[in-house]
């Protein structure tokens, strides 16, 4: 190991050495705020320290002090993380807007995990499955080994204007793996009279996967291509549904490129909530059902978007909404993020099964989410556990309720 091979964590050394090691990131129950557990990986592990944020920060400290070598096995432990950010929330949480302890803000845990993954990637220690995905992104502009031209296959020849104020960023998962969902999103956009375009064939993978894996150079390339495409379309606003794409473009692009984006990045639930508030759309049709909302980590904890999806759901007549016991910043991760679904699919579903059981406990029929990864993984967990709970996207409800 050299200074060069550890350059990403070296940059965050102050954060790593700021951990006071109390271990609330390991397990934390707080009756007062319904806080139940913290780390999905720790809970689904043999519970050695290395499966918790505290243990991992300790290890990074030792690596920086040259007391520990980086190995393939160690790398695997660091890839075994959904990067859900719950460790960050508990480390920083006072749960009161009036109590702000600056000392709680020294560590950005997810940033540290991703920085170390960047070092691991550069040392050639990424997970083999992740490298396969990266090859596909480089060859096809998507991680699904699908031809780039098929990104809009589901559109069945529909044409879009060259330029528009709003650009809808499709992402990879929905066009290639969930075409029915993306058709619903388009249908809802049409019902709402939204003026938008898409930027195919210039749209490429957002780079979320590359970033979570640690391939920073590829993310930079992808980011530049997408930004160029958005600029070319004259975009003032980028509308995004996929939670991973949203976080990557809104938060990570400016960080990685070191420059402000020349357009606004808005999650579709934020945009539709605004239209609802302005009275431009109405959710008129009744839906008689009992649902809960699962906060995707990338738009919840990472982006603080908690109310817009809830306000939309709650505006649907007759629809009964019940919160998960663990909700908003306490929400339990679905288990799919951070490259987990591809590298550790079984563990991913194990974690998602916790969420299904939680939904059964509160007596809902459906879990509503706003992230294709959450939807896929939670659905897999219902099949695995034989649950009758259905997992749907918020756009299914919106389509049904809009005139």
């Amino acid at each position, binding site marked *: 190991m050299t200074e060069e091979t550890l350059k990403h964590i070296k940059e965050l050394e102050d954060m790593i050495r700021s951990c*006071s090691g*109390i271990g609330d990131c390991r397990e934390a*129950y707080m*009756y*007062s705020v319904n*806080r139940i557990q913290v780390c999905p990986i720790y809970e689904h592990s*043999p519970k050695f320290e290395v499966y918790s944020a505290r243990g991992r920060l300790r290890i990074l400290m030792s690596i920086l002090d040259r007391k520990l070598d980086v*190995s393939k096995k*160690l790398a695997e432990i660091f890839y075994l993380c959904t990067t859900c950010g719950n460790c960050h929330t508990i480390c920083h949480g006072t749960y009161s807007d*009036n109590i702000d302890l600056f000392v709680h803000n020294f560590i950005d845990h997810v940033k540290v995990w991703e920085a170390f993954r960047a070092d691991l990637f550069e040392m050639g220690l990424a997970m083999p499955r992740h490298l396969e995905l990266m090859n596909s992104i480089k060859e096809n502009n998507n991680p699904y080994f699908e031809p780039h031209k098929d990104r809009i296959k589901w559109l069945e020849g529909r044409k879009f204007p060259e330029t528009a104020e709003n650009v809808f960023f499709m992402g990879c998962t929905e066009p290639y793996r969930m075409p029915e969902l993306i058709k619903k999103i388009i249908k809802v956009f049409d019902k709402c009279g939204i003026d938008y375009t898409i930027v195919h064939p210039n749209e490429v993978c957002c780079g979320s996967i590359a970033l979570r894996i640690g391939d920073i150079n590829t993310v930079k390339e992808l980011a530049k291509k997408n930004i160029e495409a958005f600029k070319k379309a004259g975009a003032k606003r980028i509308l995004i549904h996929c939670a991973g794409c949203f976080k990557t473009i809104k938060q990570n692009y400016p960080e990685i490129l070191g420059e402000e984006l020349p357009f606004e990045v808005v999650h579709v639930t934020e945009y539709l909530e605004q239209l609802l508030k302005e009275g431009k759309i109405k959710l008129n049709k009744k839906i008689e059902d009992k649902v809960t909302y699962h906060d995707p980590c990338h738009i919840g904890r990472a982006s603080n978007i908690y109310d817009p999806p809830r306000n939309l759901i709650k505006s649907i007549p007759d629809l009964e909404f019940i919160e998960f016991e663990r909700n908003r910043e306490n929400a339990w991760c679905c288990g799919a993020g951070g490259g987990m679904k591809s590298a550790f699919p079984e563990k991913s579903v194990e974690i998602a099964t916790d969420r299904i059981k939680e939904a059964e406990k509160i007596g809902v029929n459906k879990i509503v989410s706003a992230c294709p990864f959450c939807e896929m993984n939670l659905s897999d967990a219902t099949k695995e556990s034989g649950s009758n709970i259905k997992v749907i996207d918020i756009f299914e409800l919106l389509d049904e309720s809009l005139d």
Partner: protein
Amino acid sequence: MNLYAQLEDIVGPDYVSNEDFVLESYAHGITGVGTKRPAIVVIPESAQEISEILKVANKKKMNVIPRGGGAGLLEGVLPLVSGGIVIDMTRMNNVIDFNENTMTVTVECGITWGKLNSFLMERGYYTGTLGPGSGMSAVVGGGLSHNTVGGGGAAKYGAVTRHCVGLEVVLPNGQILTLGSSASKYIKEPFSKWGLGPDYLGLFLGDQGIHGVKTKATLLVYPRPKYRAYKTFSIRRRGDKLWPEIILELRKKGDLGLYDVFYFPELIMQALQGLLIVKDIVVFKSIKERDPKGRAVMFYTMEAETQEALEANQKIVDEIFLNKKGITAFGPEIEDGNIAKWHYEMNGHWQVYHGFWGVMGEKSVPQTGEHHIPVHQYPDLMKKFEKWESENSELLNKVRAMSGVGSSLLCDHTTVEVDSGLTIYNIPEYHEINDKLWRSYLNMIVESGGMPYMAGMRFSRALIDVSAFSDEFYSFMKTIKDTLDPNHILSKGKYYFE
């Protein structure tokens, strides 16, 4: 059969590891100063498994370090010699029995105070004292080993050890022993520790884990009263003198239902509010807005079964505070600066104290000297702290460390816990001096009459370093240690038992 294979046989292959990175994660204290790596880590799930592990360790004369939440601040769970076995207790984290007839709960000792109290509060009960300030991650076994306070409730319920009426321990030779009323085969429910002879259970309370591995504990539980009151006061001056005056007046009024009483001295409030250390950083946002000079703060939380009782007690307590010159009260809500409410209603105890330690910015961590004293000694103790600081100013400056007193809280009777210590920078080049300062600081506390409450390795050795014990007492301690642990395998090094 080698050690690894033997342990694998006992706990199963998933729960034993000798990977270098696994071992390294068990070899760090809060300060970043690494200690020795253990040879192996095991995570058992029963007393029987621990018994087998200890038998193996005894045969091989290997050091064994029991570890709970690893949240202690005085290096109580760190290996002091290379090559030991760490027993990580965190898989043993279940509630075994909740008995409303005896108002007790029996738990595995690896359960966190947070998990246990979430279970109890759903049923209208709590453990009274909610463990330490690290109650979300600290476990019951560690709390009983340390005589824990700080997580809430200490003024009313004292340290957690007061409420332990039953214990199952595994002795270093592997024998599983039940203590308390359940030691009698005719007593079916644990309910008291007295009546069957001397307090042998007490041998394992506050023992810093040197006598045995705690596997199961029975604690008294209490109904959580329906009515609560909270008030926070700003102290214009003389806080150090007013603190003992107020506490003694409160205690002399008898039982007022006080759940907690806290004091944050001016220095810590100013530091926290960024007036001395970092400009323009909001800490207790609400207090800062109302009291920008960073005055000392005291607060209480109080409980009662009826509104009338609550109001009557509150009147007495408020009079004691507000009759003192220079004391004013903040408003009733958290946004008014009433952090007492935050502490009680939102487990503030569990979230705030670790934050204090980072008061000097990134990489600053604590080297604590938390201890107990009778409250009337508080002003004198402050002078001794100042003297130590001045004598050690050169070294402190060299590593940019700061010494001082954070919060103090009322515990049993007139005892207060004083959160004093050092805040140091976790920078490798500073480690040697930081270590030297810490030793000196702890020695000073012991020589000043402070009583460690969580001793760990650090304070237990400070007691010996400054010859706090008489020869007779230390010899008595050693006789008990030798009897229970003839090969000194358990927690080697504490109190210099090598």
